[in-house]
């Protein structure tokens, strides 16, 4: 008797399953995915990236393994002549797009030398496009003596406004 009841139940289950799958087959229709909202999202993303891609990197070069100091009170850097003070060498680059970087001198010789770095002064004086600004991109571990001489030289060469490049804290 119990065996018979079990058989009946199994058969009932299988008929139920068949009915459900038949219902499913009836409901399946054409599924269309609305891509318009996705296109909208992409378009907004592209516009955002295009408008916010004003690269500061073009104005302030950060190369030669320079680790900038950190500061809380900082603004956006200005487009200006950039002087990079790496651990060993000093590089300078004009603000004109596509201008080449020039290796000026060694840091060690600047630190021990006079207050005005003659090679840097000559390079700065030659620049036709003088906005009066200089971006000093110096490594945080460099001796202040070298940076002090570079800033003095820039001032003597006619660049009165000095911007110190930092990482915002």
């Amino acid at each position: 008797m119990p065996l018979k009841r079990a058989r009946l139940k199994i058969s009932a289950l299988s008929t139920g399953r068949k009915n459900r799958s038949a219902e499913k087959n009836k409901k399946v229709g054409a599924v269309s995915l609305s891509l318009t909202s996705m296109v909208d999202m992409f378009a907004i993303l592209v516009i955002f990236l295009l408008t916010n891609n004003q690269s500061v990197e073009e104005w302030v070069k950060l190369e030669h393994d320079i680790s900038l100091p950190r500061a809380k009170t900082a603004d956006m850097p200005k487009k200006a002549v950039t002087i990079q003070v790496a651990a060993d060498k000093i590089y300078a680059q004009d603000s004109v797009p596509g201008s080449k970087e020039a290796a000026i001198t060694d840091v060690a010789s600047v630190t021990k030398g006079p207050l005005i770095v003659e090679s840097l002064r000559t390079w700065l004086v030659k620049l036709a496009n003088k906005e009066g600004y200089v971006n000093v991109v110096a490594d945080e571990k460099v001796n202040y003596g070298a940076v002090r001489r570079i800033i003095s030289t820039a001032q003597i060469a006619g660049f009165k406004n000095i911007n110190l490049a930092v990482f915002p804290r």
Partner: protein
Amino acid sequence: MGGVSTPGGDGGLNVELNLVPFIDLLSSLVLFLLLGAVWVQIASMQAAVESKKGVRSVASTEPPKRLELRVTKRGYELVWPAKAGKLPTGVAMKGSTYDHDGLLSVVSSAVKDAKVNAGGVSATDDVNYGEVVSAIDLLKEGGLKSVAMSTE
């Protein structure tokens, strides 16, 4: 797919626009812009510079209450203006690091109590440039309106 259809007879407008290549184009553009974007944030700190010859980048009259800070290998040396009252003349180093919090609290209290409103930062040649920038930053953070860097 994006489509435009108008109800009507057989001559009704029914345009189906294939958006898949458009999405491909946009996604590749997004990828290109994301990869090409510069994620390193660089800021700048404008420093008024003073030299021995009196070259001063930011024109201003000498402020009446000016703190002179000197960064040395031993710590910070402070020279306060006359009538500033009794204020600490130095902030020693904490082990091998500079006491930034100590300097900030001294400057903040001087701005509040002694009405110190300007500062000048100088340093010895052997000090790290990063410490000079930190000192300028701390003076500004402490409430000093104008901070100049001395190159003498």
